[in-house]
């Protein structure tokens, strides 16, 4: 037990003091934070996350917009939007003069045949992509308000995209707003994060064992510690590193989303729920244990890292499946494909986390997935612990999946 602790501690310290690891650990959350900070600083748009209000002009803009209504559609401005926020002009020349005089930042030209063509133009001196869309949203809402003859309730309904909510009869699930771009990118990001964190940690295991073989330290270790103690120390030490990485990245991701909610107007229903971190930790641990055990098995079999890298490609294919099918999973997070992938241990961790970022996953699926993962891990651990014997550790051969499976279930006696 004491020697397991020594291995655990040393693996942890050796990895976290590596410059490349520290850089990755810090840079991954730092880069998006800097981008967000940049947007906040230079975009000049400090928006309000509660600005779901239909007519709220963008705060922080010093100048309002104007409009020239040649079609006569706009008869009144909605309540809450005064004429200082959206200024009416008789003709385009007057509006242009107002731009020149810095009274407005731009103006909408509603053509005569607007009701037929549905087209309008927006004129401004420079183009700011970060605020243009929002500006369009205001005039759009004002026009709709007038078309509906001032019926705010209908406008509210109309302003929402028509959403067909498929309701599964069995689970009580809550779908999120999937019209927002983040509805795709958020689960995709979580999927990528999970892929990177689990694969990084599991690969550390492979690297650690093959390096000991390459450095020829293995025989000294074998004369000092039981193979199973070595294996346990490694898997726990490297697991802690992965956990640290995941909590830090996911935590800072959630923090960024929260801060970004203010800066980028992320709707509240697209924020990641806090419990995702807890499920994330659970599925990380299970995913890590599954893949790190497999990687350890590969490490035991092969003579060097080069041979191991080739072997890794074979093993990570199942892990890549959820990433390859991420579009389908996000589009239908409680569909058959998503459910099946959630119940296969090799694809479960990633699929479940992707789904959790997109919707609410039924509890029974989470529990069954955890149960199946634990069963698979126990089976693999038994096999790999059996492979962790001196004779296999001190030798090495070309990797093949057949050899791996054979050795996994029929470890040679030393």
């Amino acid at each position, binding site marked *: 037990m004491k020697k397991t602790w020594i291995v655990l501690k040393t693996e942890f310290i050796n990895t976290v003091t590596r410059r490349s690891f520290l850089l990755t650990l810090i840079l991954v959350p730092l880069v998006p934070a800097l981008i967000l900070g940049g947007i906040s600083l230079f975009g000049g748009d400090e928006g309000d996350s509660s600005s779901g209000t239909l007519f709220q002009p963008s705060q922080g803009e010093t100048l309002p917009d104007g409009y020239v209504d040649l079609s006569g559609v706009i008869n009144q401005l909605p309540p809450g939007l005064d004429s200082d926020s959206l200024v009416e002009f008789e003709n385009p020349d007057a509006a242009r003069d107002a731009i020149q005089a810095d009274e407005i930042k731009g103006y909408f030209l509603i053509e005569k045949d607007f009701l037929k063509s549905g087209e309008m133009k927006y004129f401004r001196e420079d183009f700011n992509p970060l605020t243009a869309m929002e500006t369009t949203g205001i005039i759009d809402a004002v026009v709709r308000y007038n078309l509906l003859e001032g019926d705010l309730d209908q406008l509210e309904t109309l302003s929402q995209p028509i959403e067909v909510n498929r309701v599964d009869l069995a689970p009580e699930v809550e779908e999120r707003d999937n019209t927002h771009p983040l509805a795709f990118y958020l689960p995709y990001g979580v999927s990528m994060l999970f892929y990177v964190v689990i694969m990084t940690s599991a690969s550390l295991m492979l690297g650690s064992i093959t390096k000991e073989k390459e450095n020829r330290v293995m025989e*000294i*270790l*074998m004369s000092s510690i039981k193979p199973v103690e070595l294996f346990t120390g490694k898997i726990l030490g490297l697991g802690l590193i992965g956990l640290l990485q995941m909590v830090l990245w996911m935590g800072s991701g959630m923090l960024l989303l929260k801060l970004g909610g203010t800066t980028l107007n992320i709707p509240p229903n697209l924020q990641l729920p806090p419990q995702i971190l807890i499920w994330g930790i659970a599925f990380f641990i299970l995913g890590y244990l599954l893949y790190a055990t497999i990687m350890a098995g590969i490490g035991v079999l092969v003579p060097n890292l080069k041979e191991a890298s080739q072997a890794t490609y074979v093993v990570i294919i199942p892990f890549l499946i959820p990433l390859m099918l991420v579009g389908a999973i996000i589009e239908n997070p409680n569909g058959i494909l998503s459910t099946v992938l959630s119940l296969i241990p090799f694809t479960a961790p990633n699929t479940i986390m992707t789904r959790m970022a997109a919707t609410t996953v039924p509890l029974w699926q989470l529990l069954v997935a955890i149960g199946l993962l634990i069963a698979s891990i126990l089976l693999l651990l038994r096999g790999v612990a059996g492979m962790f014997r001196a004779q296999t550790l001190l030798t090495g051969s070309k990797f093949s999946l057949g050899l791996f499976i054979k050795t996994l279930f029929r470890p040679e006696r030393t």
Partner: protein
Amino acid sequence: MSIIKTLNISKRFGEVQAVDNLSFEVQPGEIFGLLGPNGAGKTTSIRMILDIFKPDEGEIRILGGPMTDEKKNRIGYLPEERGLYQEIPLERCLIFLAALKGLDEDLAASKLKDYMEHFDLYQYRDKKVKELSKGMQQKAQLITTLVHDPELIIIDEPFTSLDPVNTEMVKELLQSKRDEGKAIIMSTHQMNQVEELCDRILLIDHGHRVLYGTLQEIQGKFASRDILVTPLNELPQTIEGVQEIKKLNGRFRLTLEEHTKPNLILRNLINSGVELTEFEVAVPPLNEIFIKVVKEKAGGVND
């Protein structure tokens, strides 16, 4: 009490019989040479002693009984296939390996300091292992073998990569460990080092015991009837009791007639007025014995 006692141990890997019915003992306070050609079964025997491999047959008693985890901490091992963690600082690497031998980390650090100073490595303690020369790494490996003050030291080719000064230092260290009562098994192909250091030897070939005993016994067994002399003046053409006189570089090799004692030849030479600066009963070098025995065995096998 023997430190190691192996009783008819055998080990087979597939079709290859690596060790076959091998028995020997190692006593405290001796340097025991484990010799043999490449592939003779030396490393497999060592690995069985260390419980890295289990013997297919036979029994090994180590430090008074079967191997335990606690006993592993009382053994220092320098394998032939050896190395260190290349990417971490030297001191951290040595502390880790010492801790795996049961040393408390603080105690390990203080003992390592002494050893590193002794081996002139202390100023490199913060350097990554890969930045050290081969010789320095070899010294560091020796430190990991000795730092926990083991009762049994097993070293395979301990002088590889060492310059003459460090070779001498390691020899002195091994001799001092022997004087402290430690048992040392040394496996090497450098026969001059065996002659200089080893008290007893075991020569194995194809997994079998070929020679086993003290160096003197073995050399005595292979001693020829030759005497080496270096005279200051001319030797007589014939000497009573000498069958053949052969001139070497400034020396003469006298092959004695059967049953002739060297004392008689010495007396005859002095009586003949020969002045001698050297008179030596020719003992066959271990190297010759090694080659002779292995070749004979190979001949036997081929026949």
